[in-house]
C-alpha cells in the first residue's frame, strides 16, 4: 500500500549494539513484531488498514532478542552484537 513506501529507516552501528529506528505512523508497540534470521531483520506491523513490512539486511551478526521501544509511531529496535 501507499503508506508503506514513504518511510524509511535508520540503522546505527554502535560499539556493542545495533540500533534500528523505524517510522510507522498509526502503529502501537503491541502491533509490532520483529522476525530475526541471522543478519536479517523483518519488521512487520498491522494497525487497522495500515500494514508495514520492513526487510533490513544488517550485515552484522546480532543476537535474536530485540528490545523494542518507542511511541508516536516511531520505534527503536536494539539488537546486541554477537
Amino acid at each position, binding site marked *: 500500500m501507499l503508506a508503506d513506501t*514513504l518511510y524509511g529507516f535508520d540503522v546505527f552501528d554502535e560499539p556493542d549494539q545495533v540500533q534500528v529506528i523505524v517510522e510507522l505512523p*498509526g502503529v502501537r508497540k503491541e502491533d509490532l513484531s520483529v522476525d530475526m534470521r541471522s543478519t536479517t531483520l523483518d519488521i512487520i506491523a498491522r494497525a487497522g488498514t495500515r500494514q508495514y513490512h520492513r526487510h533490513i539486511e544488517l550485515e552484522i551478526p546480532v543476537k535474536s532478542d530485540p528490545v523494542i521501544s518507542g*511511541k508516536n509511531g*516511531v520505534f527503536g529496535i536494539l539488537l546486541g552484537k554477537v
Partner: protein
Amino acid sequence: MEKQRKKMNDEPVLDFGLKFGGILTELGNFTQDITRMVEEGKTEMSKTGEISFDRSKKVKGMYGVSVRMGGDGMPRVDTFGRRPESDTREPIVDIFDEAERVQVIVELPGVEEKDISLELKDSLLTLTAGKGDRKYKKEIDPGAEIKGEPKKKYKNGILEIILQKA
C-alpha cells in the same frame, strides 16, 4: 461510500514539472506514470527520490510525490518528504470532504502532541509540528469555507483534524 476523497488537486497535473523542477529529474516522468496509472486502473501510486545531504553526517532525505485517483477520475497530486535544502518535512495529508465538516488526516510520526500547532486563516490551515531535527510543516487547503477553531486529536503518530464548514 461514506467518506469521499476531495476531488481536486491544487494545480493542474501538467504544471507538475514546473512546480517541482529539479526534483522531477530524479523522479522521472510523472505525467507518463499518471497516464499508465489510468490505463491500468490503479487508484494510487507514489514515487520517491533519495537525497543525500552530507555523506559524513549520514543524513539522508526522502522526497516524493503521491498521486491518488478521485472517484471522478481526477488525479490528486501531493508531495511529501523533505526538500533537500530544508530540515522540515512535508507530511502526508489526506482530506475527506464530508457533508458538514472536513476531516484531515496527517501522518506525523515522532512528535509530541504539545508540539503540534494549527493556524486557520481565511480558510487555509497551516500546520507546524515537531522540534529539533524532526519538524513538519504543511499548508492545507480544506477546499471549503471553515468556521470556528479546528479540533485535533493525535495518536500513535497520526493527527486527525476536524474542521466545521461555514
